[in-house]
């Protein structure tokens, strides 16, 4: 049984429990975070294509160099091993799931290393590794085949390993007294780059792509809050309530059937106490939370950097269009991270307090909304944010001590008149 820390601020009040939000979201969205693979089959196919093209290019050079090889057997076996590894990896990644098992990955890396070593052996005598290695550089690029199926670090380490082997070989292989001039060193550097860079670029690409998919998923989930009623219990509340009800049912049943002896022992009594507390909290809590609270607490991105102050639960009064605008604006302000060096980019959204002067005659009241940001400069704000804010209501912006402040007046139906 989990004991909850009491959070008084949850009743339409201050939401700062980012940690709580994140963990609950993570738990809840298990089925979603199991899907960062969305779209990666496409990336995998692209990577396969690049590797195949690279192999064709390598083989072309191999054919050109054929007559120069001192050890033709080693050169042929290097390419044979490499092609077998490439073919098997493509098949395995098609047949296998989203993630390649450790032993398969180990086999792939071992196979690539074998190809590298064989290729080195084949051209060792020529003393010009920069211009004669073919299978070895292709082997480095072949790591792209597994870039969607293994962790970034693993792929980078493997690429680094191949690069290191090549670099050491180049140093050892250099003829004694060779000069360090461009004509000798540049081809070797280029070879190293062609072996290592594809994997690095691939890792960046997959990482960025997954981030995009994750963020979009997060956003559509948060977006579904826009159509929620004024007060909603949220996605998690129902499940929690069902769980508590069920726990209570079992406890009561065990007492009714005499399985638990009366008077109860201390442990069971404390379970009953915490169940009652949790249940009570849930029955009170659920009614008071607005869509915006749920949106912020359910989203990984917003939960981390948005502080919501909405003591009177005024967010619930906004209509769907206004909610969408507010949410989009918050999303863009927070999500538009241009530099990693500004991690404390955060915004505070405050709704209310209502002032008496805000009542107007057409059955509408004006809800003052203030968005204060930290770490976001006025000229760095994406223009589409202003369009989104325009959908919420009349707004004006100002800059306070380097941070942006937007005041919005949202006209909403007066709940008293409706």
């Amino acid at each position, binding site marked *: 049984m989990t004991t909850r820390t009491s959070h008084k601020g949850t009743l339409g009040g201050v939401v700062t429990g980012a940690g709580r939000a994140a963990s609950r979201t993570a738990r809840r969205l298990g089925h979603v975070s199991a899907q960062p693979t969305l779209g990666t089959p496409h990336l995998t196919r692209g990577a396969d294509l690049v590797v195949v093209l690279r192999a064709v290019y390598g083989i072309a050079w191999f054919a050109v160099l054929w007559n120069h090889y001192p050890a033709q057997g080693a050169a042929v076996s290097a390419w044979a091993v490499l092609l077998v590894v490439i073919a098997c990896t493509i098949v395995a990644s098609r047949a296998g799931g989203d993630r390649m098992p450790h032993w398969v990955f180990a086999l792939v890396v071992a196979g690539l290393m074998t190809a590298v070593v064989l290729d080195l052996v084949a051209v060792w005598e020529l003393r010009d590794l920069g211009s004669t290695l073919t299978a070895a550089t292709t082997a480095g690029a072949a790591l792209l085949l597994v870039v969607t199926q293994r962790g970034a670090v693993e792929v980078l380490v493997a690429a680094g390993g191949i690069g290191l082997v090549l670099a050491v070989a180049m140093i050892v292989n250099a003829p004694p007294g060779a000069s360090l001039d461009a004509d000798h060193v540049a081809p070797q550097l280029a070879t190293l780059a062609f072996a290592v860079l594809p994997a690095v670029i691939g890792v960046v690409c997959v990482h960025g792509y997954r981030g995009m998919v994750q963020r979009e998923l997060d956003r559509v989930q948060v977006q579904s809050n826009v159509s929620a009623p004024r007060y909603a219990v949220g996605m998690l509340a129902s499940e929690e309530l069902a769980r508590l009800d069920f726990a209570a049912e079992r406890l009561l049943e065990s*007492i009714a059937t005499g399985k638990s002896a009366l008077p109860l022992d201390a442990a069971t009594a404390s379970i009953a106490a915490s169940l009652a507390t949790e249940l009570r909290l849930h029955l009170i809590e659920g009614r008071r939370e607005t869509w915006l609270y749920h949106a912020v607490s359910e989203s990984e991105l917003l939960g981390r950097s948005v502080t919501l102050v909405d003591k009177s639960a005024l967010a619930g009064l906004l209509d769907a269009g206004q909610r969408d605008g507010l949410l989009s604006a918050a999303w863009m302000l927070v999500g538009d991270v241009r530099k990693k060096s500004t991690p404390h980019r955060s915004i505070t959204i405050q709704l209310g307090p209502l002032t008496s002067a805000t009542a107007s005659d057409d059955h509408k009241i004006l809800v003052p909304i203030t968005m204060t940001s930290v770490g976001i400069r006025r000229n760095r704000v994406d223009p589409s944010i202003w369009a989104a804010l325009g959908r919420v209501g009349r707004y004006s912006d100002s800059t306070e001590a380097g941070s942006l402040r937007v005041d919005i007046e949202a006209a909403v139906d007066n709940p008293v008149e409706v």
Partner: protein
Amino acid sequence: MDLIAKERDRVLQRVARAYGLGFAIVSGVCFVLPGAAAGSTELALGVGLYVVLGAAWSMIGTSRHPIWLLLALLAGLGILAIATHLGSVTVSRGGMLSLQLLVSGSLAAVAIVLTGTAPRIVGLGIAFLLVTGTALSATGASQAPLRTGGLLLLGWMLSAGVGLWISSSVPQVSKRIASIGRAHRAERQASELEAQRRQSARLLHDTVLATLTLLAHSGVGVTPEALREQAAEDAILLRQLRLGSTPTPQASGSYRLASGGEAEPELGRTLESVKQRFGRMGLAVNWHGTGQVLLPSEVLDAFLLALAECLENVRRHSGVTQAHVTITDDASTVRAMVTDAGVGFDIADIEEANLGFAESVVARLRDVGGNARLFSSPGAGTTVVLEVPK
């Protein structure tokens, strides 16, 4: 602009940065090797431009402004011009490799971001022609134009392919994500309904909570039989709730109230059931005053919950087995006075220790516009006055 399009651009920018910067670094390192640049002036100028190129690529990773692309291209072309003296000097093999890495690798990375929309593709074409033209005319003396041009084309096609490949998957992914969003919305609505159903079973939860509270005190003060009976009843109700119906506690149970379907249930009937419940637990409740008050169901709920909570406190803390409840009403208010002749307490002590009272009694009544007041002193019993509007 579409948010997903923005996200896509961000991915493309990051990839382009890795690609462009990676090749720029390798090319730059080759360029500073002895023998690559024709002289120290060229070396100094070239290094300066490489720094500019690197900076431009860093900016392209985060900024969508086309000026950075232009800067990267200009820096690259500048290096080309300086290294070859606008084509009038033959470059060494190493120097040529450095330039080739520059134009077919680093500069080609602009193609990654220049895909997706028509203006960008036009920009890509112009950039390609510009770089190819300059490269061919500048390096004609150093390397066979066919080789230079072939490698250029290969590099640019590769990076444009990467960009196109990434962009082309976005609409598909976006569609899938949208359908996940729809599913999520449906799930949210369903869960909302389910939670409301459970929460609306407030009376049920109230008896469950009361029983759980008893159990939390190990069931002391109540006969085991009565507690078992109550537990069995509550378990059955919870089971019904779990299986999808909204159970209404029935006559033999603690409440006889319908689940709020009636607009104005009668107070009298329900008070009787509260009395029965506490009777079973060993607290005799004596009613005084009117028993025929009509209240809106929401108000009635809160009123009864608060009342039961007060009686539970009496049962647990007062040390007596009898409580009096006096119900009075006037034009606007229904008032219940819960009195016992028990041990009483000092209000100053209890209000800090027993937050349950504030939460369960006062908060519930305030919800419906009512109020609660507490009077007690040690040895003089306790009186609670509950008020709700009619």
